[in-house]
């Protein structure tokens, strides 16, 4: 592999970015982070108010990347079988009854779990195996999901009534939690101009699933220096109050720190980001860039933090700065 191979990977990602940008106005950072998570092979939790284009983004990605797409609208009465599928009785030609597995919507490359926090924990947990193992087990039979498989879940931070917050175990399975911000005036003007006044936009398929899989393999090999790796790992450890190098803010406000899965996530995401920046190595800046979406849902604050108005973002920024000074 030489510089041109890297450039080819970068140009493909750029093309996807551009194509997605046709349908999604603004939200550059969101698109960028979503692409990082997709090429790092992770699931994404999108959080934002209704109408910000979360569902549109996922649908667009599926089209541009030529991926099969399913949308599951999570509601309180949604059952696990509605997600993963179920065995139904069918009659064969001789009239004998047989169980046949009916695939649920999870059997797609890209699954949009819309308003995931509205379903009961039981149904939410139905996704756990699919998200981590990329398999589904029904009636003691395990079914492998087609690669690439990704869950892009959305949740609305405003309407908390009748919602079920995601359990920690499930949150940990999301590579990124991306906050979708409200568009600014210019972006809003463009959204209106494109979606209201003009014809619907035709999106082109830029890459296919096989290319995604091979790009993932390449991106996993991106070199990372010992110093940068140590920095990333210390950032993860600093989310634990008992880590001696953790800043005071961590020790004071963190109830439960990030798991080792967070370390894997931050490194693999940083590698993708490095290549997207046209580099063949991971830099401190890459770690800093991916730290927020990687960590903001992986550690939990105590009551003091809530009462003092301290957010996970504030703590992550403090950790990044304090560890960078020591690096």
């Amino acid at each position: 592999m030489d510089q041109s191979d890297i450039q080819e990977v970068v140009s493909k990602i750029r093309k996807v970015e551009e194509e997605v940008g046709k349908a999604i106005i603004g939200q550059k950072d969101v698109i960028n982070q979503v692409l990082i998570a997709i090429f790092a092979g992770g699931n994404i939790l999108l959080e934002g108010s209704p109408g910000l284009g979360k569902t549109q983004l996922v649908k667009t990605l599926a089209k541009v990347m030529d991926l099969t797409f399913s949308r599951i609208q999570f509601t309180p009465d949604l059952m696990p079988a509605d997600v993963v599928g179920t065995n139904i009785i069918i009659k064969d030609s001789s009239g004998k009854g047989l169980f046949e597995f009916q695939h649920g919507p999870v059997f797609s490359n890209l699954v949009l779990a819309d308003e995931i926090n509205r379903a009961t924990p039981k149904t939410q947990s139905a996704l756990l195996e699919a998200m981590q193992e990329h398999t589904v087990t029904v009636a003691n039979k395990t079914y492998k999901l087609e690669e690439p498989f990704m869950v892009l879940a959305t949740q609305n931070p405003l309407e908390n009534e009748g919602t079920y917050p995601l359990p920690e175990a499930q949150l940990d399975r999301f590579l990124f939690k991306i906050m979708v911000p409200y568009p600014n005036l210019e972006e809003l003007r463009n959204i209106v101009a494109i979606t209201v006044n003009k014809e619907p936009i035709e999106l082109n398929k830029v890459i296919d699933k096989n290319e995604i899989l091979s790009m993932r393999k390449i991106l996993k090999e991106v070199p990372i220096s010992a110093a940068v790796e140590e920095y990333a790992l210390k950032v993860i450890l600093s989310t634990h109050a008992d880590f001696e190098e953790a800043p005071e803010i961590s020790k004071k406000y963190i109830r439960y720190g990030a798991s080792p899965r967070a370390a894997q996530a931050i490194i693999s995401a940083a590698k993708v980001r490095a290549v997207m920046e046209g580099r063949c190595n991971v830099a401190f800046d890459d770690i800093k860039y991916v730290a927020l979406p990687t960590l903001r849902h992986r550690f939990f604050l105590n009551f003091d933090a809530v009462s003092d108005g301290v957010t996970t973002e504030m703590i992550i920024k403090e950790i990044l700065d304090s560890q960078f000074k020591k690096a």
Partner: protein
Amino acid sequence: MKKPQNTIAIILVRIKSRLTIKNSINNCIIGIIFALLVGIVMDLLSRIIPIYNVYGKWIIIVTLAFIATLSYSIITAPSLHKTAEIVDSYGLKERVSTTLEYQDSDSPYKNALIQDTIETLSKFNYKKSITLFPNKKTLIILLSLTFAFIVAYFIPNPKKALAEEKHTLKQYQKEKEKEIKEAEKKINEDMKLTEEQKKELQASLAQLKKEIKEAQEKKEVDKAIEKTAKKLELKKQEELAKDLKNLEDILEKNKNTKELSAALKNSDVNKMKEELEALKNKLKDMSDKEKEELKETLAKASDSVNSSELKNQINSLSSAMTSGDEVAINQSVDSIQGTLMDGISQQQMNNALAQLQDALVASQKGNGTQLAQGDGDNQGNGQGNGQGNNKENSKGSGQSNDLGGGAGNGSSDADGGVTDYSSGSGIANNQGGSSREKEYEKIFTPKRIEGTGESSSLTGKKGSNSGNSESYITDDSNAVLGELVPYDQVAGEYSDKAMESLNSYEIPEGMIEIIKEYFSSLQE
């Protein structure tokens, strides 16, 4: 073809050199700042505490600081990997350090990474990014301290002269201590000295070292040395006296040397000379047996004496007798004669001094408050000569050359007898006017080379003056009576003896201090 990795290494080595130079400049400036601070503090302190050669010391500190910081900079020069990390911190996004780590790996990214790093490094202007000019803040501190130091330099230092004086004293003390150490070494190596003698000498030298160390003035060092020299001289004389006594005892046992022993016992120099001359002649006529006996006596005599000189001379005589070499025998006898005469003279001198000391103590004991007091520029000194054929009579006369006024009381007790002493005291305290320091008057000390007699001290009351007089009685009017020696030399000896005697006499406590003061004043 040059490997791409080498290109990176070459660039990094250049950057490393630049970083080392930059660090050296910065560290040296910090070192000089530190040295300037120390210099200013030392300069200010030297105005309170005398510090010798402040600027010389400061130059040493600057030099040391400079060498230390330079060495530190070289020792702590960044490694190639550290250099890479530093370069990365100038916006190279960890390319260089990652390349160094992966350049020997099997990573598929290796070539792309090296290619990318070379391109980025070639665009990196390290000379612009890594400037050698020290940071402004440090430079301002350096200039301010330099200015303060220069100002401090021009402020007069009132303690400078005192510091120089102390330094001279210290150097003098060191010099003397070095000499003492050498002397100690020689004593340790000296095979002729017994362990006891060595210990005694070492103790004297240790005491001297202590006194030198505690001395506050050069004069005190000299005094301590002089005191120890006198002590050692006395010791030497004691040893000689012992040798003479031993010699007397051994020689008495041989009939041919019996008369010689008697002459030694009586300290009769003429008789001893005669006996030695007679011995020379006797040797020619002696039988072998007598010669053998004499050799045996001489061998015993040689063993009994501690003086290596006398021992050698006796051994030489013994050897000469064995060989029958008359010239050698004569020479040996002559040399023994010379040594014995010196010894006797010295012994007589010791006796005289002891008598004087006893007289002094007796006077103090008997008269109590008879210490003379007076005012004057100088102390009055008297010299007395006595003559007589009869040991039972004593005459004394005192003269004073005192320039100032003084009063003295004294008593003379010349009621006959061989051990007739006259004692007296009369010393004017040197309180008025100015005195001529260190130019002591010469006073008489009896030193009889020939003839026998007793010494006597007289105190005279001479008008308004006071003085000590010493008389010397001899039965030989043509004897050499002694010599004039500086007053302080005699006074020093007196004082030492008196101080030593303080503990062995019953003296009222109140008087001890008076006596001490008195003898101290004698030496001033």
